[in-house]
């Protein structure tokens, strides 16, 4: 691998005063600032990057220059819009036209129609999924209009490296308020009253954690932002919101040192963004000594682990920061009492920190104005799987999964039927289609047997085999177990083996009960959150899809055709029109037949790749039970 060094791009910035911040806001209020008529905000998130956002910016500059528009129209790169499904994406400010799913070659057409002809280039604006009507305005696209973006409010609309843009959007006013006019106790009170709960998955009340830490008598305390992969989107989009939240936390509990813990040391893009943000915040006086003449000092360093999921667990994370193996330790003592180097330490998720400045600035009542009593505020989810619009969304807690799937996500893909929703990331589980009206709150999600976890939603259609998914989950569980405690290390391995037996047709019905009770035990007795959550998929899959497990065991039948030994692909002669589509797709050449006559699959050659099943326009391919091996063992 080419070795690259990370260095922040430092621009000299002077310490700001409150007046300076006001004048920045005034300056930016005028969209014609610096003589610009409009700005084109090109998405530079990972998805759009992969679809040529750099090339797009280049072409845009060329094209604007050619048309002598370059004085009036400026081009910026932003973070991810969350609309990754439709990438590449760009917004034109101030009219907020959103262009999507175009090619760099289409840029001249867009510039021509938008700026010369003065109307949106219709071919590249979003079309409603139902009535196919064009929706040029970003704010009117259901994907955006049905969300409630607070933490993500600036995503896609500012240049993440530009601290002035962050300040313009009222950034750092929470910090100024906290350090200049609030006592630490008042900050903790405000967070406590807001009811903010940890967004890292556990949902622990943040204010309570801060209070415990604040009351500790130690001189030295630490603030750590747990920036695992799930926080990637916030760092990419809005790094200053995390920094601001951390400074406020430091002020509240009496810590002078913060760390942003990035789990992957080789994610240069993220590291560069963080370093740049920290340098600029320091330059402006939001970090460093005597912040806004309050006498309060706070600095932030980036710290990194070396991969491995378990280091997302807070106690393991702390061990890893101390240069040791990332083994979790029993709680209590909680990190808030005894954490990094034995000092009281706040470990919070990046999304949690990003909510803090908003609460301080707007007050706890504002925060509670969306969400539910016990789960106030908004939550970010990643939406993936068999839904039309994959991407990053933020909704009030309590929004039902139905709204997310059917409206924001634009419903299921063509030919797909909802089977289940997988919630919570690798150690999460499923709820069945019938539970689609479950609200997205900590209480309701937990009551359904799953976890909020990483906030990852995967919409599963009827092509999904729950047994196979449980197997994948346990493969993860035993693969990522740190090995410190027995239930997780051995229990997850045994569960994996049992599931393998089921998918390969070697299990008996008793095994299913054994699997279930083992999953309960592992959940109950494991030391840390990994072992306590990795059985979630097994438990929820058995809870909601028990018949499917039984069909695997009793009938040797995997209806989804995912478990190779338990499925046979056959062509239904009554409905097969002999179109030959399947035969053309089959990588094995296993399908033969005369034109317009029913085709036949040669079972000995079939590798069960499902291509024919997915291709057949007449749904003439059936998935039947596996062939029993007893036949040849005679």
């Amino acid at each position, binding site marked *: *691998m*080419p*070795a*690259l060094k990370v260095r922040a791009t430092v621009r000299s910035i002077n310490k700001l005063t409150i007046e300076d911040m006001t004048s920045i806001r005034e300056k930016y209020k005028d969209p014609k600032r610096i003589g610009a008529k409009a700005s084109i905000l090109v998405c530079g998130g*990972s*998805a759009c*990057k*992969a679809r040529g956002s750099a090339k797009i910016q280049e072409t845009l500059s060329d094209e604007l220059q050619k048309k002598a528009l370059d004085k009036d129209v400026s081009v910026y790169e932003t973070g991810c819009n*969350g609309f*990754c*499904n439709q*990438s590449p994406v760009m917004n034109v400010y101030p009219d907020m036209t959103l262009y999507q799913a175009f090619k760099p070659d289409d840029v001249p057409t867009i510039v021509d129609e938008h700026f010369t002809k003065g109307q949106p280039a219709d071919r590249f604006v979003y079309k409603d999924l139902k009535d196919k009507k064009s929706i040029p305005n970003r704010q009117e696209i259901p994907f955006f209009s049905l969300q409630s973006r607070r933490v993500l409010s600036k995503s896609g609309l500012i240049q993440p490296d530009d601290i002035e843009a962050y300040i313009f959007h009222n950034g750092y006013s929470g910090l100024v308020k906290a350090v200049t006019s609030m006592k630490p106790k008042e900050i903790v009170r405000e967070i406590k009253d807001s009811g903010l709960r940890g967004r890292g998955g556990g949902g622990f009340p943040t204010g309570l954690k801060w209070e415990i830490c604040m009351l500790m008598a130690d001189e030295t305390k630490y603030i750590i932002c747990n920036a*695992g*992969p*799930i*926080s*990637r*989107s916030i760092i990419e989009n809005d790094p200053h919101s995390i920094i601001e939240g951390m400074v406020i936390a430091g002020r509240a509990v009496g810590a002078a040192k913060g760390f942003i813990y990035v789990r*992957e*040391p*080789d994610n*240069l*893009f993220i590291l560069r963004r963080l370093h740049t943000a920290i340098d600029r915040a320091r330059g402006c006086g939001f970090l460093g000594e005597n912040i806004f003449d309050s006498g309060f000092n706070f600095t932030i360093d980036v710290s*990194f*682990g*070396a*991969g*491995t*999921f378990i280091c997302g667990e807070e106690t393991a994370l702390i061990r*890893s*920061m*101390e*240069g*040791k*193996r*990332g083994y979790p330790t029993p709680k209590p003592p909680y990190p808030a009492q005894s954490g990094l*180097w034995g000092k009281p330490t706040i470990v919070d998720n990046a999304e949690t920190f990003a909510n803090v400045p908003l609460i301080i600035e707007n007050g706890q009542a504002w925060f509670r104005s969306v969400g539910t009593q016990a789960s106030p505020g908004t939550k970010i989810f*990643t*939406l*993936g*799987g068999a839904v039309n619009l*994959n*991407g*990053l969304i933020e909704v009030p807690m309590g929004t039902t999964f139905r709204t997310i799937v059917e409206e924001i996500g634009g419903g299921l893909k063509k030919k797909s039927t909802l089977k289940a929703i*997988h919630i919570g*990331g*690798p150690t*999460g589980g499923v709820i069945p289609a019938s539970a689609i009206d479950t609200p997205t709150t900590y209480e309701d999600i937990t009551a359904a047997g799953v976890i909020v976890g*990483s906030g*990852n939603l*995967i919409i*599963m259609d009827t092509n*999904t085999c729950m047994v196979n*998914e449980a197997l*994948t*989950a346990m493969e*993860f569980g035993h*693969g*990522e177990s*740190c090995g410190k405690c027995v239930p997780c290390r051995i229990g997850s391995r045994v569960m994996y083996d049992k599931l393998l037996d089921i998918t390969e047709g070697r299990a008996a019905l008793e095994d299913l009960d054994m699997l279930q009770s083992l999953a309960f035990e592992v959940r109950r007795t494991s030391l840390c959150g990994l072992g306590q959550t990795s059985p979630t998929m097994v438990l929820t899959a058995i809870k909601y899809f028990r018949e499917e497990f039984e069909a695997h065991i009793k009938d040797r039948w995997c209806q989804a055709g995912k478990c190779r030994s338990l499925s046979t692909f056959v062509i239904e002669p009554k409905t097969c029109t002999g179109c030959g589509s399947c035969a053309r797709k089959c990588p094995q050449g296993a399908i033969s037949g005369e034109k317009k006559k029913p085709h036949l699959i040669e079972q000995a050659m079939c590798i069960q790749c499902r291509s024919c099943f997915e291709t057949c326009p007449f749904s003439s391919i059936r998935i039947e039970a596996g062939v029993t091996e007893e036949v040849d063992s005679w």
Partner: protein
Amino acid sequence: MEGNILIVDDDDIVVKSCDSVLTPEGFTITGTTDSTDAIELIRDNDYDIVITDLNMPGVDGFELIKQVNAIKPSVGIVVITGFASQQNIKDILQLGIIDYISKPFAPHTLLETIMKATYLVRKIKAIPAPEADTEPDAKKKTEALNNIINEFKAVPGSLLRVLESAQDLIGYLPPSVQRFIANGLRIPVSEVYSVVSFYPYFTMKARGKHHIRVCVGNACHAKKSGQIMTRLKRNLNFNDDNITADGKFSYETVRCLGACGFAPIVEIDYDTHGAVDPDKTLDILKDYH
């Protein structure tokens, strides 16, 4: 099986018979009855295996083997001999050959021996030659490593940082480097090893020039990242250490890179490729030379 093979025997019939057994199996065969000629051929071509007789006029088999080992040490040698006396066998094995066949031989013996030998040679070739660090280069690296150690020596808990920098510098963390670091930081080697072996980021084996990470986390799994894996494995011929024979690519699977909304994800070196269409997996590799 594929393989590029040279047959050297002063007896024309042996050359022809080897050709007729091996060519139909997919091997590419060159034959010569002149051993001086053979040395030229070996110098100019890339053979996997050289099959040679021992008793030949001019340069004899023993001499030929010595020469091959000198000019192309990665070529595997199989000896065909008419007089397989104990002493003879001991001598030729000491010369560093892979196997021998005694005359007369059955076609399947020849085929099996050659297939085994080719497989072995491939495996050996696939282990990238230790980075030919020139003397000054190695010195520079040692110095750089010393600087890293000195920088962090006094910082508690900095072992991970040191290891990361060392891996950046050298590419991987073989036992010798781990010992060096342990000495420098004045901690037990076992502590260094326990950390290196715990974190997936650290590798004790050399990686390819370009390192591919395929996400098999659940969002990516749902979007068929398994098929991406299959395609890579099928087309790139990774060895047991997950490196391609030419050392160009290595791979690992990872679980969730945090870009689930854009699954499936493949990272190559420092680039993130999202929404990878499994059918087009190989296309993204084209930009990496």
